[in-house]
C-alpha cells in the first residue's frame, strides 16, 4: 500500500478540525481567508481518503461489511465471532514532525511494514501486534511527517475436545 497523492487542502483541514472539536482559528483559513493554514497534529491520518485501496471506506459498486437491510453486507464463511472485517484495533499511534504540515502541501505516503510481536492476553488468547510506518514526503521529496501505527488483533484459542 502506498499513497501516490495526498493534497493537503484548507477545506479538508477545517472539516477535520471541526471533527476533533478544535476551535483554533488557524485551522479555519478556508473560511477566513487567512494563510498559511496549518494541519492539526493527527491530520496525516486523513491520508486514508486518498488511499485508493483503503479497506475501511465503502467502494462504489462493491458490497460493504456494515449494515443495510441486514446487519452486515458481507457474509463470511465459517464462524469465529469478531468483527466482520474490522481488521483489529488500533493500539498505538506516533507522529514525528520534520516540519509543519500546511495546506498547499502535496504529499506522498510510502508505507513500510514494521515489526510484528505477540503477547499473552489477560483473558487468555494471543494478542498479535503489528506495526507499520508511513513516510509522508512533500512535492520536493522532503520528509514532512513520519507516522508509526501499531495494530492489535486477538487470535482466539481453538477449543480442544475434552
Amino acid at each position, binding site marked *: 500500500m502506498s499513497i501516490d497523492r495526498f493534497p493537503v487542502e484548507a477545506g*479538508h483541514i477545517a*472539516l*477535520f478540525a*471541526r*471533527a*476533533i*472539536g*478544535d476551535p*483554533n482559528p*488557524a*485551522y479555519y483559513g478556508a473560511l477566513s481567508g487567512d494563510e498559511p493554514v*496549518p494541519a*492539526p*497534529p*493527527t491530520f496525516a*491520518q*486523513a*491520508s*486514508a*481518503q*486518498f*488511499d485508493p485501496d*483503503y479497506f*475501511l*471506506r*465503502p467502494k462504489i459498486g462493491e458490497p460493504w*461489511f*456494515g*449494515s443495510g437491510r441486514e*446487519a*452486515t453486507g458481507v457474509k463470511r464463511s465459517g464462524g469465529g*465471532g*469478531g*468483527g*466482520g472485517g*474490522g*481488521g483489529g*484495533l*488500533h*493500539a*498505538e*499511534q*506516533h*507522529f*514525528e*514532525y520534520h516540519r*509543519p504540515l500546511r495546506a498547499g502541501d502535496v504529499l506522498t505516503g510510502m508505507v513500510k511494514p514494521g515489526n510484528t510481536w505477540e503477547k499473552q492476553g489477560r483473558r487468555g488468547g494471543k494478542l498479535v501486534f503489528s506495526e507499520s510506518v508511513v513516510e509522508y514526503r512533500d512535492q520536493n521529496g522532503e520528509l514532512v511527517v513520519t507516522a*508509526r501505527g501499531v495494530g492489535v488483533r486477538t487470535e482466539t484459542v481453538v477449543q480442544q475436545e475434552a
Partner: protein
Amino acid sequence: MASVNVGDQRSLVLTEDLTRTQIVQYAGASGDYNPLHTDDKFTTEIAGYPGVFAHGMLTMGMTGRVLTDWFGAEGLLSYGVRFVKQVWPGDALTATATVTAVTDGVAELTVETVNQAGEPVVTGTAKAKVD
C-alpha cells in the same frame, strides 16, 4: 514559542458528553468509515460490542489540542499515544499535559486523557519547541 519549566502542567476539558454525531463527523473527515464507530446494528449484532465507540484517532486528535493550545499549531516535534481504553458516546474527556524535561529548546511532555471515571483512555508523550 512558549517558555516552560519541568512540572508545568495544563489540563483541558475536551468534551462533557461525546456525541455519536461527532464520531460520524470524524469518520467523514478522516476517511475511516469502520462501521464499529457509526453503525450500531453491525457493532452489536455482528461484532459483539455493546455499541459503537469512538475511533482511537478521534480521541488522539481531540487530545492534541491541549498541546497545540499551549505550543501553537506548528509547535510540535512529535506526538504519540497508546490507546488504553475504549471511548464511548456519552463519555466526558479531560486531557492533561505535563512537562517532564527541557533541553536545548525542546520540551518533553507526557500526555494523558481520562474519562468521567478518571480512567486513562489514551496515554502518550510529545516534544515541542520552546524558548
